[in-house]
């Protein structure tokens, strides 16, 4: 043996692996800590920001009451009513106390986020839960589908970067990516929904139906979901395609790719194990980032397609300065986004043995 150092080299590799596992665990713990902190920070910011929006929900509430009763009240009575509601909502407490109460109820009170101002006494939590499946359904499905399609397509056009078709695909994706999602949605609504009348372009399901477990209802639900999801998918998918293409091209220039070819591996193996596998890692990270950045697009889509999701709820609540509801929507959106991001981030070490001190 010429090299004594190599006998110990094997040991250090084994130690390296054990240390690696330890570090992955630490990474997961650290990542979870970051998750909790971000969640708290987001709740806090949302709490204070919405209270800074001008406009008093009480006046709006009063207006609603007045309209319901159909008669005018004198000023003193109005004062009394407002005082009564301010009391119920705890709005006379100093802001820090309100904040602490809010957190306390939210955490200890089983996600008690307070009643809705305008739909009092309905709990905002219930409002949100009722709307959430729409948003989560459309959002998650369209982002995931867009990611899968975009990743596959991007890998392909990156691999075939010099072909005409690839170059055309790049131009098209770029155009789609820079188009605002509402334009795509409007285009689909106008052309597919109204001019060609291929698919329904408004509402959650056909108006004459009731939610129930029948094929008629479910198929109506699905056909109504196609256009909203497609709007989201086109824009997000184009971004994923371009991203994956760039990643593929940079991986194709790596030394290990030349080496893989030199080894006489089949092009398919090179593509699968050496190019795609490696480009996939940053592409998964991109998924985590996009998840956060595209939720607002989904809200816009809900509004355009008149879907009863969180986006429409938020807009309604915003008009009425219903802090509690707005907060709850934001809270749940942030929770959903952060959780998806957390899942993606925790999946990364499985894909990338190098991930260690990066969190």
């Amino acid at each position, binding site marked *: *043996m010429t090299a004594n150092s*190599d006998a110990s*080299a094997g040991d250090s590799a084994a130690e390296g692996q054990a240390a*690696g596992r330890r570090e992955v665990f630490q990474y997961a713990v650290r990542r979870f800590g970051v998750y909790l902190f971000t969640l708290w920070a987001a709740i806090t910011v949302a709490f204070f920001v919405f209270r800074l929006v001008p406009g008093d929900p009480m006046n709006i509430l009063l207006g609603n009451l007045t309209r319901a009763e159909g008669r005018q009240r004198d000023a003193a009575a109005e004062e009394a009513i407002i005082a009564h509601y301010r009391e119920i909502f705890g709005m006379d407490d100093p802001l820090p106390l309100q904040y602490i109460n809010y957190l306390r109820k939210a955490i200890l009170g089983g996600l008690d986020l307070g009643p809705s101002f305008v739909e009092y006494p309905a709990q905002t939590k219930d409002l949100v839960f009722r709307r959430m499946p729409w948003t989560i359904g459309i959002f998650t499905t369209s982002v995931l589908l867009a990611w899968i399609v975009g990743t596959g397509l991007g890998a392909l056009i990156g691999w075939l970067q010099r072909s005409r078709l690839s170059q055309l695909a790049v131009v098209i994706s770029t155009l789609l990516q820079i188009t605002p999602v509402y334009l795509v949605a409007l285009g689909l609504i106008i052309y597919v929904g109204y001019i060609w009348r291929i698919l329904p372009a408004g509402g959650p399901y056909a108006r004459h139906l009731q939610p129930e477990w029948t094929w008629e209802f479910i198929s109506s639900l699905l056909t109504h979901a196609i256009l909203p999801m497609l709007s989201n998918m086109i824009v997000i998918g184009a971004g994923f395609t371009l991203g994956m293409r760039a990643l593929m091209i940079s991986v194709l220039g790596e030394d290990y790719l030349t080496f893989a070819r*030199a080894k*006489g591996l089949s092009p398919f193996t090179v593509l699968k194990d050496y190019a795609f596998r490696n480009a996939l890692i940053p592409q998964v990270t991109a998924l985590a980032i996009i998840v956060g950045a595209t939720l607002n697009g989904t809200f816009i889509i809900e509004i355009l397609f008149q879907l009863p999701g969180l986006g429409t709820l938020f807009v309604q609540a915003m008009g009425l300065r219903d802090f509690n509801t707005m907060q709850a929507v934001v809270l749940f959106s942030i929770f959903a986004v952060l959780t998806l991001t957390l899942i993606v981030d925790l999946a990364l070490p499985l894909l990338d043995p190098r991930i260690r001190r990066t969190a």
Partner: protein
Amino acid sequence: MPALLEIRGLSAGLQGRRSITQVVSSVDLDVQRGEILGVVGESGCGKSTLATAIMRLLVPPQVLQSGSMTLRLKDGNTYELLELPETDLRQLRWRHLSYIPQGSMNSLNPVLRIERQMTDTLIQHGLSREEALKRSIAALEMVNLEPRLLDSYPHELSGGMRQRVIIAAAVSMRPALIVADELTTALDVVTQRQLLQELAGIRDELGATILIITHDMGVVAQIADRVAVMYAGKIAELGTVNDIFESPLHPYSQGLIGAIPRAGGHRVEGLPGEAPSPWNYPAGCRFHTRCPHVIDRCRAQTPALLPQGDGRWAACHLYEPEVLSNA
């Protein structure tokens, strides 16, 4: 005995917008069976381009321009490398022809274990899983690496170990020819010496032929049997290590030998000026801008690589018969 690899008039260049810039110009080279042939030259003279052209691994903008390469295997099979379709080439690679690329520390895929990267090729070349594993372990032992390294990822290994893994991978199919580009450049002197010894051992054990490409005359002196000195994309001189180190013919070889730090630590004599890049290779003899012995015809005529007896070749007007007779 015919050469294992016969390279004739090999030219390769870089595809520009309008024209091709030639990087390697009509290289003639015979790689003899069982030898270690060093290709040496300054950075940028086209060594790697030559190596990748031999492997047919040029990627755009690099393009092959002309030439022929004949590989004659012991089993009697002869291949015209430049005419082989990609699928046949794949069969040839690793089985008969393996390649250790420049910067091969980065030649391992960071996300696959060593085992996968060593065995996938073997399996694709028809070996069973167990057989592939056995061969990989044997190959690792040839470069003094522990078999359990197979479970590691590249980032868990030192640079020297990674380099050894690459060598092991390259020899695992017992190829006839190994092309190794700047094998030791990034390594410390001790590791470098060990690696070269191991490579020489592999040559003896497998009877392989090795084309080793380097800018380091020290490496050539340590391991090679013969040397091809390259300057600006052309072979300037070819001969045994002894001949070239003892009595270099070509003025460029003389300069290179002079540029090696000697035992005393001082450079005897350096080369003035800088090597030209492919975009401004001088006309005539490409070395004439730096040559201390330049004569008139050097600026106009390109000297051919001519035999100088005893298996030596030089491309310099000074050694052409009519110049010699005039002197």
